[in-house]
């Protein structure tokens, strides 16, 4: 059985509800390339979903600023330890 034309078209272009379900995974880079392209295309054309995406991007950006600085001396010691293990 063939899908009616309108239905086939709907399957290619997801609606807002479908995009909302995968939006977080899209923003986290967790979608495959084909699926990510579909979401990116929708966000480029849908004002409401585009705004939603930017809001969550802001939340992610704010959270990433809380990443603590690491102690560089400790990192250097760990690097030396790893280098010695690997015989270099």
């Amino acid at each position, binding site marked *: 059985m063939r899908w009616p034309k309108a239905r086939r078209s709907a399957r290619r272009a997801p609606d807002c509800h479908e995009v909302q379900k995968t939006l977080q995974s899209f923003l*986290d880079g967790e979608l495959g390339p084909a699926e990510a392209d579909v979401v990116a295309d929708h966000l480029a054309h849908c004002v409401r979903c585009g705004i939603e995406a930017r809001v969550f991007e802001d939340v992610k950006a704010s959270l990433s600023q809380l990443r603590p600085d690491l102690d560089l001396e400790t990192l250097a*010691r760990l690097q030396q330890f790893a280098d010695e*293990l690997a015989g270099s």
Partner: protein
Amino acid sequence: MSLARPRLLMVMPRQKTISDEARNRAFRDHVVPELEILYRVALRLTRNGHDAEDLVQDTLLRAYRAIDRFDGRHPRAWLLTILRNTNINRARKRRPHLFDDEDQALAAIPAHGADGREGAAEQALDGMVDETIVAALRALSGDHRAVVILVDVDGLSYMEAAEILEVPIGTIMSRLHRARRRLRTMLEHVREEVHS
């Protein structure tokens, strides 16, 4: 039976080995690039710089010995599994305490974000937002906060966070998405107050 173990060991096949050169190369290619994230997550698990350094060293040793059994896919997730198991072995007699105390869990998170923004007004707004985020993080349940910290603050993937927290990826996703919606609501309230 105590006698069964040596007999079992005798019939076990010899462990597959690789040359020292191949082992060293695999270690440099797959493990060394992940040093920083290993240290970052070790700090989350131990909440102590010295313990974190020891934990990473033990993890590196185990990874070096086991690298011939690594299939080359997802090295970071593989290393984080070793890190988690090593930490459990090191603290076997203590109850695992990852993120179960909200004050300690957030101890490594500064009250304010990185400096370097231009404009006093923007800095003031950033400070308020950061304080709100920290307050919102504290308001989340421990399970939700742990996922947000590992993914959004420390930059781990869903799979990597799942390895550390020993839960399915679907659980990581649902906790993360629910937590972010709550954080968004709190941030929106702050921005509305600032701009009104």
